[in-house]
């Protein structure tokens, strides 16, 4: 392991390896799915991400490359996540880590991956810093980020008449960032922000905040929070007759699993942005059916779809490169255009941002839903080059 003997033994091998063309380290490509398997985001990523990863590996024509899959639960804790990542990289010789919801964990893994020259494909985390000031030549950010959410939802809503806003924000870094980004978009498009209230994370009861939002008479109540906070707020908004009273709720980070947990009668009319919906075309539908069969009937969220897409592209790059050195594979992934059945055609930018179209969706009324998970109406499609933050605005040191 780390004993002096093994370092010397490895030296001639290391020399040989660098002389030869890039090689697959120990003959096998090891993919590690690190997600939240048991807590807040387990339905968004979790076991479903592992299922998606398995499907991606099975669907890819590997042509002689051996691929192994590991998975672990980071419990939403940066220290657990970073321990597992270190151990995976140092001991288990994992080549790439995938998924990682929860920005704090993702940022930690981003750092470790960079130190060790491996690869990191983020699907679950939201922080746009991952392609901004924390960008790294070893990381690619898939699926979504806070900028895309704020712009997609904010832009589209203001343009369709929602020009006065009131924010209910979770008082922590993610919530504040989401609020800040969305407010900027609203103001840029000529809207007004009539007020904001910050609530503690994991507040059970939103009645007080909803009351304040109701009193402001803003047309749109923006929920700058996620997970249980969002669903609780939506549920209680229904109780207080907010939507019936003429105001609309805008969820800034909502997933298919959240809508499933709320039920259509409470969630109907909610508008938000996602980058994947299972009912877009035949390919996505086919994927969703296979996925649900392997995932206890639960349909894929955009995070899980992102895991599939990211691994597919990764394997493509590994095959082209005939090697799995982290930094080199990431560079190759940025060279090759992406094309998979779930996100369609797209590209990966130099700052590590994967570009694909985004969709503004509205939740259907219960009467409009014809089958399981038939929840969304697509209101608008935002093309890939407009959905994400422009390269020049990110502050990523890799962008010259």
């Amino acid at each position, binding site marked *: 392991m780390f004993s002096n003997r093994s370092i010397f033994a490895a030296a001639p091998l290391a020399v040989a390896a660098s002389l030869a063309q890039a090689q697959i380290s120990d003959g096998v490509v090891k993919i590690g799915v690190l997600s939240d398997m*048991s*807590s*807040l985001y*387990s*339905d968004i990523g*979790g076991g479903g991400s592992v299922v998606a990863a398995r499907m991606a590996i099975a669907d890819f024509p590997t042509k002689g490359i051996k691929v192994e899959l590991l998975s672990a639960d980071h419990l939403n804790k940066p220290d657990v996540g970073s321990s597992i990542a270190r151990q995976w990289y140092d001991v288990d010789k994992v080549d790439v880590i995938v998924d990682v919801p929860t920005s704090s964990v993702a940022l930690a893994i981003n750092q470790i991956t960079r130190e060790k020259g491996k690869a990191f494909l983020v699907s679950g985390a939201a922080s746009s810093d991952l392609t901004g000031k924390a960008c790294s030549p070893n990381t690619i950010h898939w699926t979504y980020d806070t900028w895309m959410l704020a712009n997609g939802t904010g832009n589209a809503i203001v343009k369709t008449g929602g020009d006065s806003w009131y924010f209910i924000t979770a*008082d922590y870094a993610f919530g504040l960032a989401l609020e800040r980004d969305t407010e900027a978009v609203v103001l840029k498009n000529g809207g007004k922000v009539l007020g904001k*209230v*910050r*609530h*503690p994370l*994991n*507040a*059970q*009861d939103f*009645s*007080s*905040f909803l*009351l*304040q939002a*109701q*009193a402001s008479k803003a047309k749109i109540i923006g929920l700058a929070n996620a*997970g*249980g906070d969002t*669903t*609780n707020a939506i*549920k*209680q908004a229904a*109780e*207080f*007759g907010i939507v019936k*009273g003429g105001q609309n709720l805008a969820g800034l980070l909502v997933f298919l*699993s*959240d809508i*499933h*947990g*709320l*039920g259509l*009668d*409470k969630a109907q009319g909610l508008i938000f942005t996602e980058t994947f919906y299972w009912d877009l075309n035949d390919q996505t539908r086919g994927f969703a059916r296979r996925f649900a069969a392997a995932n206890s009937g639960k349909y894929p969220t955009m995070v899980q779809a992102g895991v599939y897409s990211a691994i597919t592209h990764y394997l493509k790059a590994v095959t082209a490169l005939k090697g799995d050195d982290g930094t080199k594979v990431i560079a190759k992934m940025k060279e090759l255009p992406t094309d998979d059945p779930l996100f369609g055609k797209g590209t990966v930018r130099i700052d590590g941002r994967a570009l694909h179209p985004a969709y503004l969706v509205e939740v259907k009324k219960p009467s409009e839903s014809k089958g399981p998970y038939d929840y969304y109406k697509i209101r608008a499609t935002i093309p890939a080059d407009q959905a994400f933050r422009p390269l020049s605005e990110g502050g990523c040191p890799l962008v010259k």
Partner: protein
Amino acid sequence: MEIFGIPTQALFGQLLIGLINGSFYALLSLGLAVIFGLLNIINFTHGAQYMMGAFCAYFLLTKLGIGYWWALAVTPLAVGIIGMVIERLMLARLYKLDHLYGLLLTFGLALIIQGLFRNEYGTSGIPYALPQELAGGHNLGFMFLPNYRAWVILASIVVCLATWFMIEKTRLGAYLRAATENPQLVQAFGINVPRMITLTYGFGVALAAFAGVMAAPIYQVNPLMGADLIIVVFAVVVIGGMGSIMGSIVTGFALGLIEGLTKVFYPEASNTVIFIIMAIVLMIKPAGLFGTQR
């Protein structure tokens, strides 16, 4: 008219909301106070039992088609019985030991119950519909009050006062209180003390489950719904005076109101205000506001 920059209308609205939250605090701390006051056990499982109450209502609805009103009666019984089984099998063995072991046991049980539910049901939450009879609400002028929330206040006050009455004013309550102070003597009078203790624990648990059913339509039914709430409820019980029934009821409602006010004037602190008050109370009156030194 404005008070401290907030229009009176909005203020009354917030106070009313605070009262509603206070109802939950009161119900939950009542159960805890009953169990602690009479049995000297800190029931860390209380949060998990509250969660089981909500889930039980959900199961009754989806598996047996039993609606909300029946669930209000059946759930406390069902979860209460589970509580009594826990007490007989596990807690009873710990009475001879330091009371802290009871705390540790219930803590472990809470971990198990919450972990199992979470493995099975995830954490996104499960929808439970508002009962039709209580849907909608009334516009009170200063706010729109959902009927269900009004019902919560009413039910909570009734249950709290009924419990207080039973424990402080009836003969059964007197036996219970005597049994805590001197079990041997009371046993010598022919009263089955262990059975009373089991029933009392079951009753405290039933109160938690009742609160869970009340919560199911308005808060997301999810396995972790009791986990952070329990610590707030502990603070309420400590402030009220750990064994005092009336103390928990009054403190529960009062804290709901204070928290409601905090949400208006300084919402970021609404989580901490209860603990700050607890620290202050402990400095001035360590036994709690209504408690007696033990």
